């Protein structure tokens, strides 16, 4: 479960959707209504967030310094300060929607059928983002060049507009629906906003870190409730962190020339197959 969560958290294929679907399809004895499930999920998320912090440790030092410098000065003077403020602007809508809507949405759409349906919708979204991107490439007359030339025509994460950062941040709330991928919608949003694939992935991972970390830390007191097997759960968190670190490294390399399409087709196929299996098993 830790490996599954860590790997699927950063791939644009919805970790929550897989966390609902896989145990249900494989008849694992995980009960999401169990009081110890939430602490387990908290630890897995903290594992993922720690992996992202380690991956971007140098950048986070620069971003945090830039944040305080720009906040005190009241003026942005370099790319690091701009990125810090973009991340703040992108995090706020996700935090507001998360606090007020997350539990309501998750309660409403918790069944494996809905997760499978949303997984198909997530695939369609990924293909839609890439369709919009190809249209932008045709408009910019770079469709005929190599992938590296095409990507060079688009921007770095620091160049995204503040409005686009807020919209991409708000899109993270879609991921409260099991089956919709947080990294998928943020990478897709970044592409629509004119970022290179690799930069959209970097912005998505940087944007995810405070949200995942914050949501995890807030729930830490749950870990100290009775009956929580902390040792086993910690092992899961470590595995989740290792999987997340490997996934992030892979995805950053993949997106130098790769697109979202394979993940879109995977989500459509996995969602449709899950729907079929769930119907047959019912």
């Amino acid at each position, binding site marked *: 479960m830790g490996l599954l969560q860590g790997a699927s958290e950063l791939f644009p294929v919805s970790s929550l959707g897989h966390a609902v679907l896989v145990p249900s399809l494989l008849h694992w004895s995980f009960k999401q209504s169990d009081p110890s499930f939430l602490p387990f999920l908290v630890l897995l998320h903290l594992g993922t967030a720690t992996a992202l912090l380690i991956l971007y440790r140098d950048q986070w030092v620069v971003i945090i310094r830039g944040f305080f410098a720009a906040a005190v000065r009241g*003026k942005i003077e370099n790319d690091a300060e701009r990125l810090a403020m973009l991340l703040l602007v992108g995090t706020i809508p996700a935090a507001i929607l998360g606090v007020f809507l997350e539990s309501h949405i998750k309660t409403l759409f918790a069944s494996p059928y809905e997760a499978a349906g949303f997984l198909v919708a997530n695939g369609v979204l990924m293909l839609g983002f890439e369709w919009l991107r190809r249209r932008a490439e045709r408009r910019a007359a770079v469709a005929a060049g190599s992938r590296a030339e095409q990507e060079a025509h688009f921007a770095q994460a620091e160049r995204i507009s503040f409005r686009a950062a807020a919209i991409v941040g708000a899109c993270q709330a879609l991921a409260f629906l099991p089956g919709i991928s947080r990294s998928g919608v943020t990478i897709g949003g970044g592409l629509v906003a004119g970022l290179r694939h690799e930069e959209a992935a970097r912005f998505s991972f940087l944007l995810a870190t405070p949200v995942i970390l914050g949501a995890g830390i*807030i729930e830490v007191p749950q870990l100290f409730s009775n009956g929580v097997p902390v040792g086993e759960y910690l092992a899961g968190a470590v595995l989740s962190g290792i999987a997340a670190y490997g996934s992030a490294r892979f995805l950053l390399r993949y997106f130098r020339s790769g697109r979202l399409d394979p993940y879109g087709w995977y989500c459509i196929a996995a969602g449709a197959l899950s729907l079929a299996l769930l119907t047959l098993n019912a």
Partner: protein
Amino acid sequence: MKSTPVAYGILLVGLLCVVVAILYALGILQLFASTSSGPHYKHAILFGVLAVACFIAFNFARPKTV
């Protein structure tokens, strides 16, 4: 956009966020909370963060004398 009225509007919103954060932390405010009693630290932290964001935005928006 540097404008004194906008800047002070943002500052006012920031101060309101501080008040709302305190009310949630003390359990006085129960609006949009999942339970109807006790303190709501998640909401309090959110409004605290919003207050900090507003103070930063105020610092950006206020006209500065050189």
